[in-house]
């Protein structure tokens, strides 16, 4: 029962899982890097980053590089813990069978 509880709904999507995976091993990643790595469209990626931002799992930093706006993402402490818990839950689920 407790194992199932640890499966986090916020990560229950390929793109969201991907965003978190990339951000776990990088200090930060910008929008285009995520888009390239995940093969997602602008709108799709934006809605998923927004969802993760709402859950306070990632933080968003908007800045200008020259004149171009640049959005970069990084994980929050809460997000890292939640993601680790989610992975552990996945592992346990698989090992059980």
């Amino acid at each position, binding site marked *: 029962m407790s194992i199932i509880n640890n499966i986090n709904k916020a990560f229950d999507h*390929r793109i969201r*899982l991907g965003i978190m*995976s990339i951000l776990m*091993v*990088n200090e930060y990643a910008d929008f285009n*890097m995520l888009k390239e790595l995940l093969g997602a469209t602008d709108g799709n990626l934006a809605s998923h980053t927004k969802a993760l931002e709402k859950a306070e799992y990632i933080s968003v930093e908007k800045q200008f590089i020259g004149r171009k706006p640049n959005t970069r993402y990084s994980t929050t402490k809460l997000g890292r813990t939640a993601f680790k818990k989610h992975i552990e839950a*996945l592992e346990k*689920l*698989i090992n059980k*069978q």
Partner: protein
Amino acid sequence: MSNEDYLKDISEIKNLMNKSSRFISLSGLSGVLAGIYALIGAAFTYWLVINYSDGILYIFHGWVFWSSMSILLIVALLSVITGIILTTRKAKKNNEKIWDNSSRRLLFNFLIPLVVGGVYCIIILSQGRYGQTGGLMLIFYGLALVSASKYSIGDIKYLGYIEIVLGLIASYYPGFGFWLWILGFGIMHIVYGTWMHFKYDRKP
């Protein structure tokens, strides 16, 4: 979700982490030291050419040529050894593995332009076109940095751009090759290494 879906999730996580991670333990200090070695080597070569050759900085003769080549080799070797030692130390501090996918990828992408450039320089030298080597070294080193920057601290690409521009100028004005080499390999390394050191190494 079925078990298979979860397994797929996990393999995708692993794959993305692998693909996107960069090797960030490059030491800024090793850049500073490489710059200092380059300056010492260049000063020694300058002294040799002024005292034992005819004082023209892009036509070396006989043993002066061979000793300046040896100096170049020693400078390169010392820089590489210093780089490896300091980077290993920093990687340990960061809990980053020195030899994993990210560092392998970094080295591979750095070495392709560099080795091609090195071989090309040897060919040019064997044809006696000494004036071009300074520029070529700068250009290929710059390209190597730009290529490597995608797999490490992104900032090193700016150093790469600078080296490329200096190299192109040196190719056009071979007479300044020696001085541009000093600027590119000596001074730029020191400036950049210092900047990197304060930007990345000092962070807790």
